[in-house]
């Protein structure tokens, strides 16, 4: 199957006064048509930046400085601003983490949904209202014509997230980017929203990039999973391999340190979760070699020196770990290696 979106060696660096922070420094993933890819990582892993980079929306002082983004055979980094605008919200749509911040507080729901339709589809106000109402009904909102006249502050968090989902679906996108779509919601509302997303993705033949830190959530939603740590891809595999045969030490650690609601801790004399020592690295001065090596139980001297390259271990399963046989690349000149590329490839929004 050909991939809908291929992200290869993506690099997003922050250009701050105190230096260059390579927040995303080699993230690879690919999304096939009609599948859900879970992009999993902790804070600072670069997962949100990677999803924003797909729409070329990384905020200054961050800029895309390397890698390639190919969508439906097109090089997204080579498109001009007008072509990119034609893509955003139409072919690739985004659902943001915080629905309260991603809706405009001074426009009615109908106005902000209609604006998108009238921009992309060039249709009349009345037609836009009808289409918006249809979408609200699709996401399970009763009395949509009334809701279209309301403002964001009049709606609950779950309702606002439904509106955001409806907004993302307005133009029948091929790909939805969902960045922690349920983090701020209560668990029973989260279940409603996840069911809705899954049902709509299936029914409307869309693909979805689901960005999350929650292993339980991606286990439920994703077909394949990419695990990222400190700006680099650790492991990509189908959901069963990730949960039943994880290879990267970080993937294993992430699973072991997650408490489980289906586990009997009462019968253990000394219940303890396996933990990852240390803390998430400071991305202004990331560790050399493999970025996980200071916290990795299996690290050797090689791991501190060589950057692991992704290696395919089985069809659809690739891992970047020297201890699993991945090839290592010596890093020359440390973190500033890629600065030469900045002039040639300035594709972010104007700084």
């Amino acid at each position, binding site marked *: 199957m050909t991939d809908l979106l291929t992200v290869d060696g993506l690099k997003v660096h922050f250009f701050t006064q105190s230096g260059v922070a390579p927040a995303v420094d080699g993230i690879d993933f690919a999304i096939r048509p009609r599948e859900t890819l879970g992009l999993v990582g902790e804070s600072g892993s670069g997962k949100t930046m990677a999803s924003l980079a797909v729409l070329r929306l990384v905020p200054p002082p961050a800029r895309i400085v390397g890698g390639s983004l190919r969508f439906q055979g097109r090089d997204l980094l080579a498109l001009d601003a007008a072509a990119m605008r034609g893509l955003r919200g139409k072919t690739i749509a985004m659902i943001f983490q915080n629905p309260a911040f991603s809706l405009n507080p001074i426009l009615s729901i109908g106005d902000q949904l209609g604006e998108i339709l009238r921009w992309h589809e060039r249709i009349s106000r009345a037609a836009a209202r009808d289409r918006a109402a249809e979408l609200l009904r699709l996401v399970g909102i009763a009395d949509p014509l009334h809701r279209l006249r309301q403002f964001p502050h009049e709606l609950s968090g779950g309702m606002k997230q439904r509106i955001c989902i409806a907004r993302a679906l307005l133009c029948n996108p091929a790909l939805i980017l969902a960045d922690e779509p349920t983090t701020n919601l*209560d668990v029973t509302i989260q279940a409603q929203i996840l069911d809705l997303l899954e049902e709509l993705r299936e029914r409307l033949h869309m693909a979805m990039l689901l960005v999350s830190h929650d292993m339980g*959530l991606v286990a439920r939603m994703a077909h394949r999973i990419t695990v990222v740590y400190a700006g680099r891809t650790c492991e990509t595999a189908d959901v069963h391999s990730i949960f039943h045969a994880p290879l990267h030490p970080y993937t294993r650690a992430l699973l072991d340190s997650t408490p*489980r609601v289906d*586990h009997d801790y009462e019968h253990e004399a000394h219940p303890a*979760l396996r933990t990852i020592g240390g803390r998430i690295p400071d991305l202004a001065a990331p560790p050399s070699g493999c970025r996980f090596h200071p916290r990795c139980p299996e690290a050797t001297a090689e791991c501190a020196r060589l950057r692991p390259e992704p290696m395919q271990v089985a069809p659809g399963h690739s891992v970047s770990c020297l201890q699993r046989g991945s090839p290592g690349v010596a890093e020359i000149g440390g973190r500033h290696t890629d600065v030469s590329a900045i002039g040639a490839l300035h594709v972010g929004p104007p700084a």
Partner: protein
Amino acid sequence: MTNLVRVEHLLKRYPVRRRGILGGRTVGQISAVDDVSFSVAAGEALALVGESGCGKTTTARSMLHLVPATSGQVWFDGTEVLSVFRGNDRPAVLRARRALQYMFQDPYLSLNPRWTIGQTLREPFRVHRHAPPAEWNDRIAALLERVGLEPAHAWRYPHEFSGGQRQRVGVARALAVEPRFLVLDEPVSSLDVSVRAQILNLLVELRAALGLTYLYISHDLASVRFIANRVAVMYLGSIVEIAPAEILFRYPLHHYTNALLSAVPVPDPDARPTRVVLRGEPPSPMHLPPGCRFHTRCPAALPQCRTTPPALVPSGDGRLLACHNPR
């Protein structure tokens, strides 16, 4: 096991006021905590779970008089502490404050940014004077080591620490007065997975080592399963079910507990438990439905659920349940 803490008919109402020319008037009331009773045995960890707005934090704060309760009693080791906190007997207040400590949710807001960690940890000693000043520095160093930090960290400021380390400082501050009962209000919800596990392990280890009793407040049922012996489920200001953790997680009887448990995503792609997805959203606490508060969303509501609120009564297996038509 003897009860260390007993909460009886705790009630917390907030007036809803509308502003007017002559200072406004009260137009309604919100019952954040509505006649809540439960007990915590010595040495156990009781979890209070529920969704946002269900009153779990307000319950805990009213218990320690961090917000004044409208009515009700809180018994601690034979003493009614709410009247102590309201009274003027300062030695008695300090005694109660030492015994019952509260650890806050947000590690970024609960530490004074202009104080070093040492100054923050010295404050409980300065207030309670439970150790001679000559010992304070040694005690602070020992506390920091107890929670997995280094004595030298006492010279640093909160901004120099990560979220997990700040939460360790929060634990150290609560432990400084050698409490017997500790309220943990969402202590790990702002932390990353790998750091969260470290703090959860620390809390479990400290409870065993120091013989502490916990009230653990959380919406994260996986961490509750890890830490708690008993679980109380709240919905719109009332406890709907309270049971030993094993029983509650295996056989939830209340339909809300069942929906809550089945909504938690399990980190296993093959786990496909029969999920109950609740319709709608919780009603506004200003306009509570009559009868059982859950009847508007309950899949098994009977006609009587609309009129008669169910009482929280024993159901035989160490469980208390408030439901007319349990599973």
